[in-house]
C-alpha cells in the first residue's frame, strides 16, 4: 500500500489519508466545480484538483521523517502553489495539522483529534470564518466533535460515524446564508444550495473512512 521505503507505520497511515484525499479531490473536480457554479465562480473543484495533482506529482519527494513533517510539506505545497481561496485555506489546514503532530512518530486517536482541531484553528485564523458562516468548517467541526466522542469505539468505527456526520452537516449548509467567500455576495440567494467546501469535506471523509477500514482490516 505504502510507497514509503522506510516503512514507518504512522507515516504510512498519513500517506494513505493524504493520497485518498488527493484522489477524491481529483476524481470529483467536475462535481465540485458544479457546486461552486451555483452561487460561486465555479473554480473550487479546479483549484482543489490542480492542488492535489501537485501533491501527488511530488508525493515521493516529501520529507517522511515524521507524519508531522510530511503533512507540513503537503500543506506548504498547497498553500503556496494553489490559487483561489482554497489554496491558502486547505494548505493552512495541512500545515497546522502537521505542526500539531510535532515530531511524533506514532499518533493516537487523541493526537488525530488535536491535529484536526489545529487545522480548524488555522482555517479560522486565515479566513476569519465562524461556525455557521456556511463554509467547510460547518462540515468539518461537527465531524471532529463526533470523531472525538466515538474514539472509544475504535478508529474505523469513529471515522465512519464522523464521516456520516460530515456528509449530513454538509447537506444541511443548504439552509444557511453565506457570510464568507464569494457566495456571500449573492445574499439571500445563497440559501438553498449547499456550500461546496462543506460538501467536499463530506465526500472526502466518506472516502477516507472507507480507505481506512480497508487498510486497517488488511493490516489485522
Amino acid at each position: 500500500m505504502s510507497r514509503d521505503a522506510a516503512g514507518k507505520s504512522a507515516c504510512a497511515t498519513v500517506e494513505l489519508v493524504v493520497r485518498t484525499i488527493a484522489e477524491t479531490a481529483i476524481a470529483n473536480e467536475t462535481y465540485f466545480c458544479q457546486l461552486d457554479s451555483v452561487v460561486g465562480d465555479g473554480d473550487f473543484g479546479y483549484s482543489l484538483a490542480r492542488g492535489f495533482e501537485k501533491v501527488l506529482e511530488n508525493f515521493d519527494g516529501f520529507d517522511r521523517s515524521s507524519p508531522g513533517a510530511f503533512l507540513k510539506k503537503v500543506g506548504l505545497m498547497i498553500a503556496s502553489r494553489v490559487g483561489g481561496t482554497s489554496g491558502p485555506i486547505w494548505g493552512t489546514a495541512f500545515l497546522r495539522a502537521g505542526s500539531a503532530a510535532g515530531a511524533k512518530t506514532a499518533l493516537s486517536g487523541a493526537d488525530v483529534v488535536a491535529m484536526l482541531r489545529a487545522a480548524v484553528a488555522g482555517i479560522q485564523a486565515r479566513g476569519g470564518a465562524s461556525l455557521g458562516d456556511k463554509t467547510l468548517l460547518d462540515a468539518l467541526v461537527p465531524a471532529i466533535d463526533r470523531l472525538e466522542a466515538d474514539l472509544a469505539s475504535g478508529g474505523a468505527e469513529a471515522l465512519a460515524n464522523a464521516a456520516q456526520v460530515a456528509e449530513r452537516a454538509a447537506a444541511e449548509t443548504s439552509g444557511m446564508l453565506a457570510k464568507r467567500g464569494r457566495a456571500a455576495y449573492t445574499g439571500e440567494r445563497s440559501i438553498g444550495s449547499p456550500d461546496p467546501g462543506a460538501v467536499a469535506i463530506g465526500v472526502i471523509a466518506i472516502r477516507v473512512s472507507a480507505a481506512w477500514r480497508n487498510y486497517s482490516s488488511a493490516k489485522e
Partner: protein
Amino acid sequence: MRKFVNDPKQFAPEMLKGIALANPAELRYVPEYNLIMRADAPSDRKVSIVQGSGSGHEPAHVMLVGKGMLDAACPGDVFSAPPVDYVYETTKLMKSEKGVLHLVNNYTGDRLAFEMAREMAEADGIRVETLIIDDDVAVKDSNYTVGRRGVAGNFFVMKAVGAAAESGADLEALVALGKRVNSVTRTMGIALSSCTPPAKGSPLFQMAEGEMEVGIGIHGEPGRRRVKQGTANEVVSLLLEAVVTDLPFGSGDRVALMINGLGGTPIGELYLLYGIAHQRLAAQGIQVARSYVGEYCTSLEMAGASLTLVKLDDELMNLLLAPAVIPYRVF
C-alpha cells in the same frame, strides 16, 4: 464553448505569452509565476506596484503593466486568486528600496494570498504595504461579512498610484493616495448573460434572454437579484441610483464616469449607456469631467456593463491624465 483556446488549462499562460510577445521592449514574462513585469523594473527610485487577482478580467491587470501604472502583475488561473508563491516571488523580484505596494481587490482568496506573501517577503526584509480595493456597491458592507468587492473602479486606484509612483511618491504617500481614491470610487454592474471559464467549458449560470442580473461581480457569480431586462434608460437609472446615493455624489461634484464593458457587450452599447448617464448626472448638477468608455475589468465574455463614478479633485485629475505606456492601447 465559443472560444479561441488550445488546452483550457493553459489559457492564462498562453495569453500572457501573447502579451509579452506583443511588447518585447517594454515587458518581460516569467512563466513560473504567471508574471508579467516591466522590463525596467524594479528601480530603487520608485515604489514597485504589484497587482494580482484571477485571470479572465483582461485588460485588468496584466495588460496594465507598464510605465505609469503597474510594475508587475501575477494573475492566477481564470477567476482564481494567484497562489501565494506567485505573489511572493513577484514581490521579491520587484523589491525596491522604496518598498513594494500590493494592490488587492477585496476577495478572500486574493487577500489570503497577498497577506501570506507579504509576511514571507517582510521576513526577507522587503517593505510591503497593502491597498485593499472595494468599490462595488452591490455588496452590502458589514463587519460580519467579507465586505465589498473590488471591481472596475480598481482602474482608478492603479492609474493614480501608478502615476504618483512614477513621479517618486513614497510608500506611505501612495497608501494614503490609494485609500483616498478608493474612498471616492463607487461601482455597480449588471449582466445580460453568463460567461464560460475555459476549463469549465459551460456557462456558470443559465440566463434566458430578456433577463438581467443586477449587482453582478466580475467572476461569473450571480448578482443580488434577477429581474426583467430593462431599456437602456432603465438600466442607467438603476446603476446611477445605486452608485450616486452610496457615496453620496451630489450637485457641484466633478466626477470621472466610467462605463465598463464586461466582455461581451460591444463598445457602441457602452457609449449609448454613457450618453444617458452623462445627461442624467448633468441634470443632477454633477459634472462629468472625464470619461472612460470601454473594457477595463471584464468577466470573460459576459454581456453586461458596470458604471463607476469617481469624485475628482485637481490632484486626482492630473494623475488620471498622466501618460502611461501599457499593452492595453489603441496604437
